[in-house]
């Protein structure tokens, strides 16, 4: 056996608190280790060349890369083996960044832990066998969940690329929240017009099936061959989809959660969204006093919304401007924490709004109390360090974005993850911002975190393009980490069948044993753990590998 060990400095990230040179030196003493080296960035071209050159020069048959977590750059290092005709499953990744250098700053302890982890990889890799990835055909069709501006952008693009599209929208109408906006930033176009244009274009296409008032009820299969069950007003529909774009948007923050705001108890307290709907019906005195409050349901840890909602400062500015235009003699005061007018043209808009006479007060508002003669704000001016009470005829709450109401349901149906705020979690915020951990399932728009219209459109299209790039190939490779059953050991108890979430285990009535449907198996290993007769094992993760890796961690060194 000829093993090559390659240890990455990751710039400062690992080298800062792990003795990388000491590690590469240490492993040279093992007889099965042919080469052991360290390098500043293994993922860069010189770093990659170092690995491929070593494979060629020494005829390596095992490669251990000790660097970042395997979820990052997994395929990159596998490809290096492929390039040199070495089976890619003879690669072992060891995480010495996320599991060592980022955890603590004690050089000695970190180095010791890294040593153990690499040794464990070395012992485990000894049992690796070449595995083959199976090629499967993919369905050139896509399921798009959500008919808001992001979902519509995705659906339109995929349809134009000759993909069959199934668009599922929960409400009776397409267009999501954008339909309600009178003036979309920064174009100032009417939201309904933007939607109508997209909707008409989509409806004119013959490769798009639109299901409104519908929802996804079941989802199974694997990349390229997903089966979705959709509950529609015309009964249940089953469709095949190669992949999915999830664009289910957001839920406007409900100010009821903060009773001190008085929302819902007095018609003079409204949200920015209410104001969009009722602007024409607004009845105020000639010289109204209007307050606009920023950060309602954002940057607020107490109610579990620690994040900034990204769009509400501009919405608040639009509300203030709208009032000023309608009532030139009005007194409009905006209460903010930090003015986040970052979108295109936003800063200029903020300045112009000040010039139009809107006052901006940096403040924390503690309470809103409706009195017969006016709604009274109780707050603290953080610049003057003064407590104030001020009466208004109208209070507008610039509400933030909360995670979509159905994010949990969709996440559990599609087996994708949510972040701490219950928005969908990206595979990597910069490298793979549209990917989820499940192949072929992409996320777009504000369901992965607050976004404005422009950004949601970009996201919808970018996700759709990713999916198209995958599906247009016409084939895909399936992971070889699947369960195999030893029929001689199987007692036919069928406990594994119950455990399997992918419905991949089938019982053979005649032979009274189970077998695994390879294409459906996700390689989760639940059946392995359940089997009382140890009749099932997972390719690439057999017990000897796990056992030896554990003993390496415990062995005296």
């Amino acid at each position, binding site marked *: 056996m000829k093993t090559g060990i390659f240890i990455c*400095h*990751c*710039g*400062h990230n690992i080298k*800062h608190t792990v003795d990388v040179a000491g590690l590469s030196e240490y492993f040279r003493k093992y007889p099965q280790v042919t080469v052991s080296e360290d390098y*500043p*960035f293994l*993922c*860069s*071209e*010189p770093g*990659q060349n170092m690995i491929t050159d070593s494979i060629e020069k020494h005829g390596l048959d095992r490669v251990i890369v000790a660097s*970042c977590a395997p979820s*990052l*750059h997994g395929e*990159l290092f596998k490809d290096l083996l492929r390039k040199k005709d070495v089976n890619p499953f003879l690669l072992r990744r060891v995480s010495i960044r996320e599991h060592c250098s980022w955890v603590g700053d004690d050089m000695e302890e970190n180095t010791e832990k890294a040593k153990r982890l690499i040794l464990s990889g070395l012992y485990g890799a000894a049992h690796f066998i070449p595995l083959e990835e199976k090629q499967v055909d993919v369905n050139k069709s896509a399921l798009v969940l959500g008919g808001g501006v992001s979902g519509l952008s995705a659906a339109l*693009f995929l349809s*134009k*690329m000759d993909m069959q599209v199934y668009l599922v929208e929960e409400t009776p109408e397409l267009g999501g929240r954008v339909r309600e906006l009178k003036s*979309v930033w*920064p*174009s100032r176009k009417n939201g309904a017009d*933007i939607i109508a244009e997209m909707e008409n274009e989509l409806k004119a296409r013959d490769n798009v099936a639109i299901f409104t008032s519908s929802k996804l009820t079941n989802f199974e299969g694997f990349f390229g061959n997903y089966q979705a069950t959709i509950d529609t007003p015309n009964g249940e529909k089953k469709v095949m989809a190669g992949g999915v774009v999830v664009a289910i948007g957001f839920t406007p923050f409900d100010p009821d959660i903060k009773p001190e705001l008085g929302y819902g108890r007095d018609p003079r307290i409204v949200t920015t969204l209410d104001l969009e709907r009722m602007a024409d019906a607004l009845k105020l005195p000639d010289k109204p006093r209007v307050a606009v409050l920023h950060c309602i349901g954002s*940057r607020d840890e107490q109610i579990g919304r*620690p*994040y*900034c909602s*990204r769009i509400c400062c501009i919405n608040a500015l639009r509300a203030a401007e709208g009032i000023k235009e309608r009532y030139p003699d009005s007194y409009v005061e905006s209460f903010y924490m*930090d*003015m*986040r007018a*970052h979108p*295109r043209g*936003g*800063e*200029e808009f903020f*300045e112009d709004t000040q010039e139009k006479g809107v006052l901006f007060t940096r403040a924390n508002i503690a309470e809103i109390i409706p009195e017969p003669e006016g709604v009274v704000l109780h707050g603290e001016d953080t610049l003057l*360090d003064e407590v104030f009470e001020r009466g208004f005829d109208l209070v507008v709450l610039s509400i933030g974005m909360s995670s979509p109401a159905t994010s949990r349901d969709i996440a559990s149906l599609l087996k994708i993850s949510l972040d701490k705020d219950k*928005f969908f979690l990206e595979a*990597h*915020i*910069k*490298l793979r*911002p549209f990917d989820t951990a499940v192949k072929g399932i992409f996320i777009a728009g504000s369901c992965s*975190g*607050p976004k404005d*219209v*422009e*950004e949601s*459109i*970009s*996201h919808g*299209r*970018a996700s*759709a*393009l*990713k999916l*198209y*790039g995958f599906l*247009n190939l016409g084939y895909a490779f399936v992971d070889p980490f699947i369960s195999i059953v030893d029929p001689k050991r199987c007692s036919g108890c069928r406990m594994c069948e119950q455990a399997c979430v992918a419905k991949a285990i089938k019982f053979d009535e005649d032979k009274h044993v189970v077998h695994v449907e390879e294409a459906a198996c996700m390689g989760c290993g639940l059946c392995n753990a359940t089997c009382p007769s140890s009749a099932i094992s997972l390719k690439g993760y057999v017990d000897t590998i796990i056992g030896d890796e554990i003993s390496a961690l415990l062995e005296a060194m």
Partner: protein
Amino acid sequence: MDNSGKNVLVVGGGIGGITAALELASCGINVSMVESGPSIGGRMIQLDKTFPTLDCSTCTLSPKMVEVSLNHNIDLMSVSQITHMARKGPGFLVGIKKNPRYVDPKKCTACGTCSEACVMKDRIPHEFNMMLGKRAAIYMPFPQAIPQKYLVDPERCLFVSRGKCKKACMDACETGAIDFEDKGEELEAYFDSIVLAPGFDVYDPTEKQELGYGTLPGVVTGLEFERICSVTGPTGGDILLNGKEPKRFYFIQCVGSRDRQSGARYCSRVCCMYTAKHASIVKDRVKDAEVYVSYIDVRAYGKGYDEFYKTTQENGALYIRGIPGEVVEGDGCLVVRVEDMLTGEMREIETDMVVLATGVRPRKATAELCDVLSIECDDYGFIKVDAVAPSQTNVDGIFVCGMGSGPKDVPDTVASGGEAASRCMEYIVKGTGS
């Protein structure tokens, strides 16, 4: 759908251009990437870490750069420019000038002996390091550069510029890769569509004399500070000022942003967060560091940003609302004079290093590029786009992504790269009537 035989030109090899190029290539499109500099990677590859995850920038971007160089559908042209363009049917006939590198890429092994031998070694200010540190006239801008090849700087090479040099580099090169006869190449090619990713420059704060940039040692820009922090930078990643580790740091935000005087009313969208990142890097690497940040509004609007800002404060960075009136020389230190708007008090704060969070400007070459391509820009010089189709320029078939159309952070640039590529695909498909 068979997309082979379709050609797209991507101008600019930063994270925006790279994203667009890789997406297009994965759809089977032939992509020509024209980069004016010696390596792709753009501004992002100059960064030490990226917010809010503190991922190392090189580790995030380098694999994508390698993908560009290995992808069979992508033809990378470095040190190259667009010279002319003419509309031809739905597409474009474009002239490209490939400037000479004077090093044969097929022979160069990037061993670096030429650079070691160069008589100009350690004598030329290094652009990649924001002029901190020196390089030779034959060089590779940074160890992870793509192409992974050396090149000669014709303006600074004594032989190319004056015809007088002993050419030690040629003797040193074992593979005979150096070729002073290299004339470069001019070519003209047809493209079905074009994606522009010209990127950005940073504001030069020299004109703000009150802040002392250029006159007081220890006053640096944000991008200079990135290079000081970076492992591939002039100090190997040790935070040093004249060889000594500073202990007191003062970060000033909104330098050349939200500022009519400097000609930019707009917000640069990245400086609040990169400052928070700098503050947390300092807190992590410099023991007992004292960190002040001056701000107007902290614009931590992206996913995980506000949480990152909060953590930075919790780790001890002191935020002062108010931009300093001046930075002056003190007794063996710098003194920052600032009105703290929250307490109303005038303060004088002693510090060792002042980092100016300089804002974003259109890249200088953008104006020329837009001239050649008949692209309209806004008053600031950013490329004008349709707000509902944010990569659509005034020319049908030419799209833009990244900072070229206005300030964006990395996640937004990646999204805009994908969007531009998608519009490009749509334009091409429509053009062929399929």
